[in-house]
């Protein structure tokens, strides 16, 4: 998973957490508000009812009968000493007119003749307001003090646990989603590059083939043959680019298995230099080898290492069209075998920035060096590039063979 995807995933997870928390609290607040504002019988104000009821001396005048009837409620006042009902409003017939201490203890906790009731203690007795049957669920809860004390912590703990589960699930889902997306993109990209590479090869064969034939045709004027040679050379550059692009992609997506064996880096360097000279290098270029008498050996994929070295040599020529002195060599540095290729521009003109500095790829010039870096990394090594004042030094650090 690339860094950008990780950031994206982290952002999504943080957003998910915020969303979960926001939903939880909004839901809680909405529930509380709804319950408190609901127009149900249980929410009536007992203070208002009690204040609306006068005393025995006044003959129990009651001003809130409209308020109670609107909610379908009934009310009684039980005398504190005798237990008799001394005042009532719309009392159902089944509700008794006299109460003992046991009855009072029972209905204050539970129900009075299946009616859920609210009570309020007054100086002259107990005011009881009854709600319609099955309108309210009433249950007495007992809890020891320690449980009540721990309840907030438990609630917070459970909330965090739930959040953790949600996050883990979200992370799993996102990871899978990213992986699927990545695979889909990789497959599409590799199919596209393979397709383009395949489709470009046949027409390029025609260009290279006919240009090659024209170049060899001795009946043509020299100028025409030289022009054909330019076409042939440029076609070869396109072919090399296509090959590099293909190999870069395969190394990027681990599609290129390493076929490791004991290889001689000196032989690879010599072959790279010989290939360069055999390709018809002009007199403006010179190649010198600096190889020790007992060159080190390493374990690697000979094909890939040859490709890397060829790219380094080609890089020297491509970016020094006026000619250059090329030196290549080999040395041992600790556990590393260092293959190096250095170009020194003839008649050094430093006005142009050396394009080979773009070793991180991106630009078309950088493809070759990016491939070199990838090959070095696939062998557990690295590639370093340094330039300045008409010089360009490429170094491949590869682990020495333990054999």
């Amino acid at each position, binding site marked *: 998973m690339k860094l950008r995807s990780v950031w994206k995933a982290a952002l999504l997870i943080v957003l998910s957490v915020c969303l979960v928390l926001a939903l939880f609290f909004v839901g809680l607040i909405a529930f509380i508000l709804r319950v408190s504002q609901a127009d149900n019988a249980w929410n009536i104000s007992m203070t208002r009812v009690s204040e609306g009821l006068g005393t025995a001396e006044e003959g129990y005048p009651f001003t809130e009968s409209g308020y109670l009837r609107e909610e379908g409620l009934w009310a009684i006042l039980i005398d504190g000493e005798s237990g008799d009902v001394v005042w009532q409003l719309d009392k159902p017939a089944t509700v008794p007119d006299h109460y003992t201490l046991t009855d009072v203890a029972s209905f204050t906790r539970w129900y009075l003749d299946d009616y859920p009731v609210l009570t309020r203690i007054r100086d002259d007795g107990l005011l009881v307001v009854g709600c319609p049957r099955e309108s309210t669920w009433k249950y007495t809860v007992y809890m020891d003090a320690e449980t009540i004390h721990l309840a907030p912590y438990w609630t917070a703990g459970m909330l965090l646990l739930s959040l953790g589960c949600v996050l883990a699930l979200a992370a799993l889902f996102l990871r899978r989603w990213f992986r699927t997306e990545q695979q889909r993109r990789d497959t599409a990209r590799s199919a596209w590059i393979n397709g383009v590479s395949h489709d470009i090869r046949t027409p390029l064969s*025609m*260009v*290279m083939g006919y240009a090659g034939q024209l170049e*060899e045709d001795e009946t043509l004027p020299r100028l025409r043959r030289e022009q054909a040679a330019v076409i042939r050379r440029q076609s070869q550059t396109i072919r090399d680019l296509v090959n590099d692009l293909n190999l870069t992609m395969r190394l990027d997506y681990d599609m290129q298995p390493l076929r490791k064996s004991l290889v*001689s880096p000196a032989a690879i360097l*010599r072959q790279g230099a*010989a290939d360069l000279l055999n390709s018809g290098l002009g007199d403006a270029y010179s190649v010198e080898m600096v*190889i020790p008498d007992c060159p080190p050996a390493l374990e690697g994929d000979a094909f890939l290492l040859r490709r890397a070295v060829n790219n380094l040599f080609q890089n020297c020529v491509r970016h020094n069209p006026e000619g250059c002195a090329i030196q290549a060599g080999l040395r041992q540095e600790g556990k590393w075998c260092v293959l190096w290729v250095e170009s020194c521009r003839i008649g050094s003109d430093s006005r142009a920035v050396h394009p080979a500095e773009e070793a991180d790829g991106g630009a078309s010039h950088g493809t070759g060096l990016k491939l070199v870096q990838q090959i070095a990394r696939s062998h557990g090594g690295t590639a370093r590039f340094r330039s300045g004042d008409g010089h360009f030094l490429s170094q491949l650090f590869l682990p020495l063979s333990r054999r």
Partner: protein
Amino acid sequence: MAYTILIVDDEPSLRSLVRGILEQAGYQVTEAADCRSAVSACRAAAPDAVLLDVMLPDGDGFSLLSRLREERDLPVLFLSARDEDKNRLRGLGLGADDYITKPFLPQELLLRLKAVLRRVYGSREEEEVVRLGASEIRWGSGTVRRADGSEVSLTAKEYALLKKLCANRGNIVTVDALCAALWEGPMVGYENTLMVHIRRLREKIEEDPSHPRYLLTVRGLGYRLAKEGAG
């Protein structure tokens, strides 16, 4: 007698290009655009070698290779735009003699075809003679005929060395490649022995071995057999 080559490719312009290259080099050419006509052409023209594309309209080159081999045991070179290792290995694993990836240079195609033909029908070329100034190398007898008319024999190592250099005439052949052509196993410590063989070879092919005109040393890299008339 010229070799007959069968080109199997569904791309007419590519067939035309390859036909031109091969005919210019003295080969006879016959063409097929698909598997079915390739089998018929193989029966009718009895080619000496086949240049085979991998992707064909009515099948793939890999299965066609097996069918052609059922008809006749002849050398087959794949000429494909598919450069993946698995295709190359599959083709070579099925017994193809070479796998050339498009795009290719005409010279590259001719050299690789020639190498395969030499390997399979070596006897037709055995009598070929290579000239090095006034000297002549006669592969058939493994001898060098010198300017004064005398003949000297080449040892097995000198013969192999000269073959390798002649096959790459005009190009630098590294000491590693020469050692690999002469000896098997890891190429360590053979450089000095190689120098001895080179010196002896120079004594046989050069007029003045101290100032060689043909078998040239390329310092730090290897040797080059100069082309006729070149320095």
